[in-house]
């Protein structure tokens, strides 16, 4: 009542240039003080701790792993999104619920302006809360000396998503002013996020990459350590979220009572611009592809981001040859050396045996499992290239040191027999199996390990016509030959390998030619 009565008097008063901004700032301050969002921040904080922070503590101390669940898979957005949408709907429906819409329309400030200020206060609390919580989490990580670089672009993308949820909830509340607007907006937000996650699991390319909780391609195994996080995808998501925010806020300015004609035209322009921005983002992502360092969007891609990060490796000679890795992986160096020790011992004195091992960048393709993680042997003198990749190290996603060690040994032997990215010839398979047995990896465990590494397997779970009931593990001609070779005295096996390795690697040896 006071506002309405005072409005005409203020309207006649000559305005100074600073009057409007000062008035807006004052109104914003009032809205910030009376906003409901702060009440929900303790609850969101509890949820954030439980859902975003706590699961990350089970991961090894690498930024890419610590933030994989909360930022990479979007759980921080899931923690904030529904609640922010609900509270924003509550704030957006305030005038409608109180039946004061007409009263508010007659005040000095256009209704749309007032609504935008109310939304801004809600968004400031929400985005501010998000930044504070993420900042606190990052501070904890930093205190724990987590290795690598933080994924800053993904933090910004999350903030944009929180702002978009606040705009969506606010618009819903403004158009449907009811006590049920808040829960409906919250559950609608939750549903949208879950559908986004699930669609992301199915669609591993194209437009689906734009979905805010689609985790495919967000982080690569060595992001922030051997190469930078690519900003292409977060930039596109920021564009989408900003576009949706603009469009939704613009929509609230379209009704007749939102303000004067000029203001409503401005709202229409904002709506169209927002839709155009969101549409552009979706269109850009549709042309994206997964590159070695992450999702590449041609129109947004900066070639400078394709560089690898320089670093001074840390090395160990415990395996018998120097093994060098990125300093971020130093904690895993002992395990890596231990895994390679029996392999190097087996190779000792054989032609083409590497005299050192170095870490190479790893690539993970979510559509094809872990394939592409093969080791290589190249150069003169030979160097073993090891793509470690944070996603496959001991402690990540429950992987044990034994599992990881076995996989490393298998990949090394696979490279040594010259099988490359293929499953190799049957002779190469048999020699690989025999060498693995020599390193202490029993035949019975090899088929399961083969499938877990993503390498093409010669003991696949899908039965072949010779074994319609499903092949028992580690049987068949390949393993028969491998057992024969492994049963030879060590010196005899070594001598045979020295004489035949070149032929084996070139694929000229048959299974029958094995001793």
């Amino acid at each position, binding site marked *: 009542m006071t506002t309405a009565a005072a409005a005409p008097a203020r309207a006649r008063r000559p305005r100074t240039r600073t009057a409007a901004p000062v008035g807006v700032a004052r109104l914003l301050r009032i809205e910030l003080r009376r906003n409901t969002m702060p009440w*929900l921040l303790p609850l969101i904080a509890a949820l954030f701790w*439980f859902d975003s922070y706590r699961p990350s503590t089970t991961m090894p101390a690498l930024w890419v792993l610590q933030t994989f669940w909360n930022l990479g898979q979007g759980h921080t957005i899931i923690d904030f999104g529904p609640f922010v949408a609900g509270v924003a709907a509550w704030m957006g429906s305030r005038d409608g619920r109180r039946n004061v819409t007409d009263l508010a329309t007659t005040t000095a400030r256009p209704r749309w302006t007032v609504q935008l200020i109310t939304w801004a206060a809600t968004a400031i609390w929400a985005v501010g809360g998000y930044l504070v919580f993420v900042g606190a989490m990052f501070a904890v990580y930093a205190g724990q000396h987590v290795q690598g670089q933080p994924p800053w672009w993904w933090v910004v993308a999350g903030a944009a998503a929180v702002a978009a949820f606040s705009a969506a909830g606010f618009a819903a509340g403004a158009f449907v002013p009811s006590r*049920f607007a*808040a*829960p409906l907006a919250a*559950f609608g937000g939750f549903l949208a996020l879950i559908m986004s996650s699930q669609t992301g699991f199915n669609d591993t390319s194209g437009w689906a990459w734009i979905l805010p909780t689609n985790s495919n391609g967000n982080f690569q195994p060595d992001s922030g350590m051997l190469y930078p996080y690519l900003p292409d995808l977060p930039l596109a998501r920021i564009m989408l979220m900003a576009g949706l925010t603009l469009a939704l806020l613009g929509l609230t300015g379209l009704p007749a009572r939102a303000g004067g004609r000029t203001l409503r035209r401005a709202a229409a322009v904002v709506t169209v611009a927002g839709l155009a921005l969101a549409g552009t983002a979706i269109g850009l992502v549709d042309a994206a592809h997964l590159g070695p360092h992450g999702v590449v969007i041609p129109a947004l891609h900066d070639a400078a981001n394709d560089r690898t990060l320089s670093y001074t490796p840390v090395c160990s000679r415990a395996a018998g040859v120097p093994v060098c890795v990125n300093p971020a992986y130093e904690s895993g160096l002992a395990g890596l050396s231990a895994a390679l020790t029996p392999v190097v011992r087996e190779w000792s004195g054989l032609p083409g045996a590497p005299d050192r091992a170095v870490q190479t960048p790893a690539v993970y393709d979510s559509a094809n499992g872990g394939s592409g993680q093969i080791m290589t042997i190249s150069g003169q003198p030979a160097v073993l290239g090891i793509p470690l990749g944070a996603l496959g190290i001991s402690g990540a996603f429950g992987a044990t040191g034994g599992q990881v060690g076995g996989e490393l040994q298998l990949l090394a032997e696979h490279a040594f027999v010259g099988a490359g990215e293929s499953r190799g010839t049957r002779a190469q398979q048999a020699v690989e199996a025999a060498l693995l047995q020599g390193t202490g990896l029993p035949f019975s465990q090899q088929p399961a390990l083969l*499938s*877990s590494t993503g390498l093409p397997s010669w003991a696949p779970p899908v039965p072949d016509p010779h074994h319609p009931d*499903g092949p028992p593990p580690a049987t068949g001609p390949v393993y028969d030959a491998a057992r024969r070779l492994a049963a030879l005295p060590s010196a005899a096996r070594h001598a045979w390998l020295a004489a035949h390795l070149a032929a084996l690697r070139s694929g000229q040896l048959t299974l029958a030619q094995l001793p």
Partner: protein
Amino acid sequence: MTTAGVRDPAADAGPAPAAGAARALLRLAWLYAVSRRLPAALALMLALGALLWSALHWHWSIAGGPAARELITLTVQAGAAAVVAVSSYGPFGEAERATGRWLPYLRLGTALVLFAVAFGALTAGAAAGTLPGGTGGQLRDLAGFTGLGLLSAAALGGTFGWTGPMAYLIVTEVALTGHPATPWVWAARPPSDRGAALCTAAVFAAGLAAVTMFGGRETGRRSLYAGLGFLAGLLPVGVVSQMAEPDRWFAGKLAVVTGGGSGMGRELACQLAAAGCSVATCDWHADEVAETAVRAQANAAAEVLVTGHGGDVSDEEQVLRFRDELLAQHGRDHVDLVFANAGIGGGSSFVNDSREDWERVFANDWWSVYYCARAFLPLLIASGDGVLVNTSSVNGLWASLGPGMTNSAYATAKFAVRGFTESLIEDLRTHAPQVRVALVLPGHVGTDIVANSLRARGLPGPGQMTGAQLAELLPPGARAGLAKAGLLPENPSLEELRQTMARMVNDFRDKAPLTPARAATIILDGIRAGAWRILVGRDAAMIDAAVRAKPDAAYDYAELFSQEGSA
């Protein structure tokens, strides 16, 4: 109108006698009900449930697994609980305020009525097979969510009653996707978990108390209640869950589970391990049983050992090797439980299918059970308290799948399993009373048995099948039936046949009325309770009842399933 109608008795009647008070209460309740609140709440609950369910079910019926199906139900439950909380606890208009001292009780009544409606809708959904879970699980989860909603309403204000269920839903989602949050989460626990039931009851009671105690106040010390409300709601869940005595029946025992690479076998292994029981499980898919072992071990206590073994239990030599391996790895000289669960489908027609197919199915489904009994019975006797659990099927009661759908080898084997198991009851009672035997009769459970059966025949996935393979799997009669049902065009292309095959494989798993996890829970509950005959699923119970009631009409389908006179 409503306002005036409500205000009159309170303002004019003065102090009323007991009968008058009761009449006034009834009148106020009626006015409360016919105001817009209850219809709006019911409509919203219906709309919300339909929206969430249809969207999620449509989406996840393609891609989802058991966890996704659980989440569908939990999302609907949380939404219903939010509507109950928001509807029964402010903000209120003149009509409700005019009820004066009766307002808290009206709120309580509203909460209970809406809760009953939501529970009825959920159980109807479960009965119709559109939602997973039994009545007990539905009641527990909905009560828990509603209790949290009412506590949130009391703490933050009526309209924020949705925040509790929403927060809990997100926490539950974390647990369902496999992160280490299970001690807190009742909804992700088996229905038989007494600790979870206790938590739920406590939270529900606290919510009802809150709505009654604070029900008369429009404003209060919300700054105080805000934190306390959530602590009151969430802390008991964790604390009581941790304090509740864990299920000790299986603890410390060693169980053998065959067919542990997927489906019920995998779930049995996981639930047994979670209950403190060491498990040795085998499957002819070595990598899948290894994954089962990893999953089961992840949720097990430190003293529990889970081992996965590759092997074909239709080959006695491999069964014996499995036995020797597991005894060596677990360092035991006996086993306490044997779940002969492995099985495949196929060999449908004795007339048309190859003898090789027929005998392979029979061997997998019958000889595997027989060899396991031979191999493990001495070890069960050595246990002193052993249980042999043989999985038959609803096709061990009824040798058909319906008109035109033959099931010869499978049904023959499952009848054999049933006969063998029932014959062991007296045999063991007489000669080895320290061992008991149980017969499991599952109906349609969402397992990978169809896909596994195709793999066992050496067939590739549906997407890679040749025309000849598809012609064998979908003979003209079956195609005609599918075309009649609108599932296949009249003259389907190769790709359409592949898609139909893929859909059949996926639908068997994803659109089953019962998840493997629920089935495993039912089986373990039955074992714990000492049952010798465990029917798994409503369809199994229905067919069992129908065949018993009308044995002569067992294969006269119209008569068997006619309502008149059926059990």
